[in-house]
């Protein structure tokens, strides 16, 4: 069977070429699978709107749903906030805290976990302490952090650091320890120095695990930021001197009685969290090109 015959047959059978990159809007909108998702959302929004406004058309508002702010009001609040510079300042404030704490977690976590991975002795000594403190939620550290750190910003950053530190360390440790021993032996037998082995074998092997750990860590980071902003705005910190932030926005909307704004805040944080995860996923994919899925 000659090559030419094969290719001829292949082209005869192949359907007309579709440009893979072309953005076919029609195809996306009419895709039955996406339609189902859209249907679900329409149903949810409908139930939400009916339930939230049930006070108006029923004798008594429905339990639970009846207390929600209506989607219409949420939309109105969103438009209001969209033009309010204070709202966008909140984004920056929260984003800045996330960045600071997360960067600290990565910068401390990765070397620490590589150290643990490299030496059984160090691991034997340090890991149990690490493990003991792990179930203590980062937020439980807030009071201690406030006592210790001079400014509130630093204490929030520290708590964020703790939150992201654990998943990063655990994932990188797992990744480093799962490097197939045979790779290491092969490298050594080919004459590589310890440093070479570290740089060219261990580090790349650890990158995927690091990417996963970072993705998990950023999610926790946002949780902690929101909580810290809410707590220091409404509780432990006393009268708020914090620089705002989306968590604070939510809390003050609640305290101030503008309930639709709460939901706008929630959605904003969701978007921010999703965007940062996506960014990290993208970075992770760039760092680990060998893990690209085979096309088709």
């Amino acid at each position, binding site marked *: *069977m000659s*090559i030419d015959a*094969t290719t001829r047959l*292949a082209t005869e*059978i192949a359907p007309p070429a579709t440009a893979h990159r072309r953005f076919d809007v029609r195809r996306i909108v009419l895709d039955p699978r996406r339609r189902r998702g859209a249907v679900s959302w329409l149903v949810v929004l409908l139930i939400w709107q009916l339930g939230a406004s049930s006070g108006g058309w029923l004798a008594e508002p429905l339990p639970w749903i009846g207390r929600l702010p209506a989607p219409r009001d949420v939309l109105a609040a969103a438009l209001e906030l969209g033009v309010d510079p204070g709202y966008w300042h909140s984004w920056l404030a929260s984003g800045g805290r996330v960045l600071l704490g997360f960067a600290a977690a990565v910068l401390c976590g990765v070397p620490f976990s590589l150290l643990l991975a490299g030496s059984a002795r160090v691991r034997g000594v340090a890991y149990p302490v690490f493990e003991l403190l792990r179930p203590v939620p980062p937020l439980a550290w807030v009071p201690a952090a406030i006592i210790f750190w001079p400014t509130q910003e630093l204490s929030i950053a520290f708590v964020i650091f703790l939150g992201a530190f654990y998943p990063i360390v655990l994932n990188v440790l797992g990744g480093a320890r799962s490097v197939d021993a045979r790779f290491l032996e092969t490298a050594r037998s080919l004459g590589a120095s310890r440093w070479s082995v570290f740089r060219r074998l261990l580090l790349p092997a650890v990158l995927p695990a690091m990417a996963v750990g970072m993705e998990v860590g950023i999610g926790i980071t946002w949780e902690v930021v929101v909580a810290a902003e809410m707590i220091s705005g409404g509780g432990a910190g006393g009268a708020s001197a914090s620089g705002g932030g989306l968590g604070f926005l939510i809390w003050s909307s609640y305290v101030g009685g503008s309930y639709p704004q709460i939901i706008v805040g929630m959605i904003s944080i969701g978007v921010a969290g999703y965007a940062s995860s996506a960014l990290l996923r993208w970075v992770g994919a760039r760092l680990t090109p060998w893990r690209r899925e085979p096309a*088709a």
Partner: protein
Amino acid sequence: MTAPDAARGAIRIHDLVKVYPGRDGQVLAVDHCSLDIAAGEICAVVGPSGCGKTTLLAALAGFHGIDSGSIHVDGHLLCGPGKPRAEVGPDRVVVFQNGALFPWKTNLENVAFGPIVQGKMSRREALDKAAALLDEAGLGDALHAFPGETSSGARRRVEIARALMTDPTILLLDEPFRALDALTKSVMHEALLEAHARRPATLFFITHDLNEAVFLGHRVVIMTARPCRPKHILEVDIPPPRTQALVTEPRYRALVQEVAALVHEEARRAFEANDREH
């Protein structure tokens, strides 16, 4: 050489074509392949790697559809014009290359699985029958062990027993003994022949081991390089019983050599085609 009397399981593959979407366009895997397999026959299928044998098996099993041509079993249409994909069913059971015994069930439960889920018999009956089958195969000790605790050779036998429990018309084996060492393999061969003698089903048996193909098969089908179609069909005219003593007989050795030469030709072709593609 005729198979033991069995009226079911005659396969007729006619003009089969199967195309896959590949990385750079469509890939023709099976090209107008036609093959007749008699009821109860052990048909060994050999050929160079990636030539499309497994695609053929998957089409027979109903795991995917075909693009043109047809397959009939005992005169009934399995798949073809108007019905591009066969149904997956207990009349055509597959024994997988990497083993698919459910690790969370004991060997006994695994073997009894088919009749239980088909509702053909009560759980009690199915377990008893499965125990009897495993005892017959000499696996009485492994009844209550999990596959993870069983040796690989025994696992394969359990899997074959599981397949045979449902009394299939056709048994599709995809390189079932590939991962075993030569000693275990020889035991497997005898076990398979015994099982076949007791319950004659048609065996469609893909393998890379040419010795195995000639030892077990009533016929050996040598496939061309991709896209595959039968290049040559060899009748293995060695009467039963086939025992290990066969290995030294001249007739056997001659057949193996013939098969080897044909496969080698196709393997070279595949190799060169690959070379030219890059």
